[in-house]
């Protein structure tokens, strides 16, 4: 990530923060997101119980019930596990999924898009046609099919979602490179003897970062939603993993009897995704004047 720090000089960082902090929603999103990261990292400190511990005398108890073991703030599920504790540990999975998917698809997409935009010709044509193929499938369907090939599970779900998210980065990078590659500063670097790799990743890349950062925020929340959807369909993280989508899938049959087992995991997904999208809107407004909502 040296490219980022190189592109964001102190002055720019200050300017960025000025624009970003003007947007109250974005700041709220940032605070909420930071809180979520903190809760996820320090899960054992916050969770009142072990997320897998089953209290046989407290099956499906409603929120605010005091059991023999302590207070079940958000109630328990059908196996007597404390929902709050499972949600807190579940935050780890969702954020981990987001980080892994965004890193993998961002790095892969930037490298591929950089090659396409820099070399043009048949390299470009081949890469873009392959991306067209991936984009011809609805993302969730392709992810589902990939998981069917790879086998259900969290790791495979993340691989599938990363593959599906990749073309967006490729297209953005390529478009940015196409508009940058003939600028004077690139020619200057080339004339002074910079090789293609140096030109691509040191000279050009830092100037293409703004749309990529915005896209990263968008696909972070998209990855969390897709992973939860796969978990919900039984193709993502497998029980007893306290992943939020998987928890919802397990809760489905109790929908009429115990509203809390259904309500809270979904609320956790919604709040997380909302926080990231709020931040993403702020990032877009601050980084990308062209995309700015007038």
């Amino acid at each position: 990530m040296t490219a980022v720090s190189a592109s964001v000089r102190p002055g720019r960082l200050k300017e960025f923060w000025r624009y970003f902090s003007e947007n109250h929603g974005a700041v709220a999103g940032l605070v909420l997101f930071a809180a979520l990261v903190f809760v996820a990292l320090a899960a054992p400190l916050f969770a009142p119980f072990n997320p897998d511990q089953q209290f046989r005398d407290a099956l499906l108890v409603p929120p605010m019930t005091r059991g023999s073991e302590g207070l079940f703030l958000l109630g328990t599920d059908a196996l007597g596990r404390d929902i709050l504790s499972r949600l807190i540990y579940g935050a780890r999975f969702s954020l981990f999924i987001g980080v892994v998917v965004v890193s993998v698809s961002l790095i892969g997409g930037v490298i591929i898009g950089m090659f396409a935009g820099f070399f043009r010709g048949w390299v470009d044509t081949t890469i873009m046609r392959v991306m067209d193929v991936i984009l011809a499938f609805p993302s969730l369907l392709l992810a589902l099919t990939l998981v069917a090939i790879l086998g259900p599970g969290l790791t495979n779900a993340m691989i599938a979602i990363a593959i599906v998210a990749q073309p967006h980065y490729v297209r953005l990078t390529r478009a940015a490179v196409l508009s940058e590659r003939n600028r004077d500063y690139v020619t200057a670097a080339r004339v002074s003897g910079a090789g293609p790799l140096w030109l691509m990743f040191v000279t050009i890349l830092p100037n293409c970062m703004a749309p990529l950062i915005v896209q990263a925020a968008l696909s972070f929340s998209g990855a969390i939603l897709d992973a939860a959807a796969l978990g919900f369909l039984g193709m993502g993280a497998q029980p007893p993993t306290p992943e939020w989508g998987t928890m919802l899938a397990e809760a489905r049959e109790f929908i009429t009897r115990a509203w809390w087992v259904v309500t809270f995991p979904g609320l956790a997904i919604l709040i997380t995704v909302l926080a990231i999208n709020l931040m993403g809107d702020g990032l877009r407004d601050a980084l990308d004047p062209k995309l700015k909502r007038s």
Partner: protein
Amino acid sequence: MFGFILRRLGLLIPTFIGVSLVAFFFIRLLPGDPVLLLAGERGISPERYAELMHRFGFDLPLWQQFITYFTDLVQGDFGTSISTKKPIFTEFFTLFPATLELSFCAVIFAVVLGVPAGVIAAVKRNSWFDHTAMATALVGYSMPIFWWALLLIIVFSGMLGWTPVSGRISLMFFFPKVTGFMLIDSLLSGKAGAFQSAVSHLILPTIVLGTIPLAVIARQTRSAMLEVLGEDYIRTAKAKGLSPFRVVAVHALRNALIPVITTIGLQIGVLMAGAILTETIFSWPGIGKWMVDSIFRRDYPAVQGGLVLIALIVMGVNLVVDMLYGLVNPKIRHQR
């Protein structure tokens, strides 16, 4: 314009070959032997195995297998489902009207609410309506729709008992399939209450599937309107003394709708992905549920055929959107 269409069609050929390659390798990359997979869980004798190996052409070189597969696809042979033994093409298009009807209603729902909300938010910028609408849109945009569906079921089916939980129409009604669209067929049947039953089954799935497009359309309409409202011709229209309503509804909206129409077209992928979840939850007998069921039934030829057909539909819709866009915006048409 004709050249533009031809260029766009030309781009679809490599994409289609790529899509069929993906579908082709899907069955071959699955863990395990393809014939054993096709045979299902009952097992198979060695002689029968060899025979099937030969019949499906799995003993041929890979490139020859692909040529055969691709030729079949071009001729409209998308394979046969293991579980129903029917051609996948027939099966797909028997179920497709259900998905089309649901998606169509979802888009209508999204446009009817989203466009006016976006317009009002833009005209009354920074008012309480603007803030509320955009906050709501952001929540809708961030919604895990499978959870949204469950919540709506809890409230409207469970607590209030207003809407049914699953299916397309009450089992009390039975009438011949004419168009495959339940709303039309129930009207044609002339049975009292059939149409109401179809509508009540459609409401919750429509809301669920339409939520994300609604949020996207409202946001897009607002920003497109804000851009247009700053243009000189709007000032001219106002200066001419036209009523504010006419300025907004005719002069501004007409120009703001161009990017909005593109956005609606681009929602097709979102709709198809949403249909997978919505149909599964509401037991809606469309292709989304069919694909998920096929994956769980290990009916891999059905998944394979469905992948190609769905990709073809997405490609077709994108082509139409591209052409519409080229039609209204000559700048796009003459690119390259």
